[in-house]
């Protein structure tokens, strides 16, 4: 059986049914642009500070874009039992869940490039290390998507998916070094920062834009990849234990 036919059709259906719907497109475009506007209005900083803000904006766009849509759609399909259609198909669970999450990964990656695209008209981006920035963006999208998958497998109701997402998202915003350097956080909060995938993702983005990364980029990539694999396999194990009871 040609598993890839199933893979592409699951991805295409999800893109059509969820990600390419006007509310999601407008959310994907407006959310990052509003973040940019908010930072400038509130901070009163000039354009020269935009490269410092961009990594944070990109990371937030990915985090919110991926976790909000994926966790809700998977929970909705599970609740309406249409997810059973996928579980009944002769597709290995790993491939099935990769197909189900690919839409969110693409959506998150595209979301990240919205603030970057806007910034192209405002500042000079010639110093950006694209070789690091692009893979980092994709890896952040993968880890955030798998976090969304982990959330959707852990809850039963759609509203729980939203609440549980915020349980991870908001602490992550403040602890991953976006607004405050990790070194400036109280000692007891720092271990928590290093337990968040976004910490490593934003550090790579910062490094590729301004060269001001705190940890070596290689280690950041490695740790982020480990997070991706870990979150995916924990989610698969939970699906096996909770949904195929």
């Amino acid at each position, binding site marked *: *059986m*040609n*598993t890839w*036919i*199933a893979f*592409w*059709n*699951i991805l295409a*259906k999800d893109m059509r*049914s969820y990600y390419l719907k006007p509310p999601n497109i407008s959310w994907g475009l407006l959310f990052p642009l509003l973040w940019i506007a908010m930072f400038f209005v509130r901070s009163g900083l000039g354009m020269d500070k935009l490269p410092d803000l961009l990594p944070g904006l990109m990371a937030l766009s990915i985090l919110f874009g991926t976790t909000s849509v994926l966790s809700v759609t998977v929970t909705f399909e599970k609740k*309406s*039992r*249409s997810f*059973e*259609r*996928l*579980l*009944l*198909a*002769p*597709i*290995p*669970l790993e491939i099935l869940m990769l197909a189900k999450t690919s839409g969110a990964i693409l959506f998150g990656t595209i979301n990240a490039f919205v603030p970057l695209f806007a910034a192209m008209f405002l500042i000079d981006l010639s110093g950006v290390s694209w070789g690091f920035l692009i893979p980092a963006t994709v890896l952040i999208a993968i880890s955030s998507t798998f976090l969304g998958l982990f959330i959707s497998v852990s809850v039963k109701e759609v509203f729980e998916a939203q609440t549980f997402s915020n349980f991870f998202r908001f602490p992550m915003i403040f602890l991953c070094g976006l607004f405050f350097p990790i070194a400036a956080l109280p000692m007891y909060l720092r271990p928590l920062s290093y337990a968040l995938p976004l910490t490593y993702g934003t550090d790579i983005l910062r490094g590729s834009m301004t060269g001001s990364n705190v940890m070596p980029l290689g280690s950041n990539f490695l740790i982020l990849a480990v997070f991706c694999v870990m979150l995916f396999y924990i989610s698969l194990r939970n699906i096996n234990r909770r949904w*195929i*009871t």
Partner: protein
Amino acid sequence: MSDHKNLIEIEHLTKSFDDVIAVNDISFSVKQGEIFGFLGPNGAGKTTTINMLTGLSRPDAGRIVVEGLDYSGNPKVAQHLIGTVPDESNLYPELTGFDNLCFCASLYGIRRNERRKRAEELLRAFGLQDAAGRKFSGYSKGMKRKLTIAAGIIHRPPILFLDEPTTGIDVSSARQIRRLISDLNTEGTTIFLTTHYIEEAERLCERIAFIVSGRIIRINTVENLMRQTQGEHVVQFAFQAAADKACEHIVSTFPDLRCQAVPEGIRVESSRPVRVGPLVRFLEDDGIEVMEARKILPTLEDVFVQITGIEPGAMKKEKEKIKMGNNG
């Protein structure tokens, strides 16, 4: 049918949820080309069994072999051989009927042109061609059920699992679905049908298993099950009076008779022929005007009641109530 090979073989299948044993050490086989009925009240373990056979649930113990493939450990190896129609229509509400079928076909690796052709063919066969471009969410219950069955056979599986296919839909749609099931079987599909409509099972199935509280208590051909009621004589009396009281009086006066209140009046059963004259006179002396007395031929429902002690009427009502609750 008896010389056909076994397509599904179940050995000592067991499943518990916390402290409740949902399916308790059941063993049976389904022959190629037959319609096998799985009958039981709500909570008997029918859906749990189907879920284990289709790969939606993992057995605690036991063995499942489909077409020689043992998939107790990994159901994925045999899922291409089976089609499943769950007890609730679970297609995608945002997709049209046509897109739903094409999407389901793609899950089995069917290529674009072939899946479009197959979807059109099934929409025609199920009389849904005019609704092909409408969203599934706008379908009536009967149409949803038909499309869900079409989605279950989109990949031409040799085995089809149908879980309560006619529950909660109107009479005409139920009739059409029964005809479709029959046609599918004639075309060679082996069908595993769970239902609580005993008359449906009697009409469609060749063999039936009665399952109560997770255990199979009887399994046989409909013909052999019916033989059990041979020698039973049943007469129904129709009248408008208190049936319970009439039954009490009859049983105390005619101790060899069994009596049961039914909506029309009473139903009298005996292992010997029931003499209608004395009974009518007795009832009329009791002040009851008998409108009609007729001999009832025993049905599978009587066999079910005899074996399980469960009233099918109560079973049907309970299921409809659950269905209404879910839909409401």
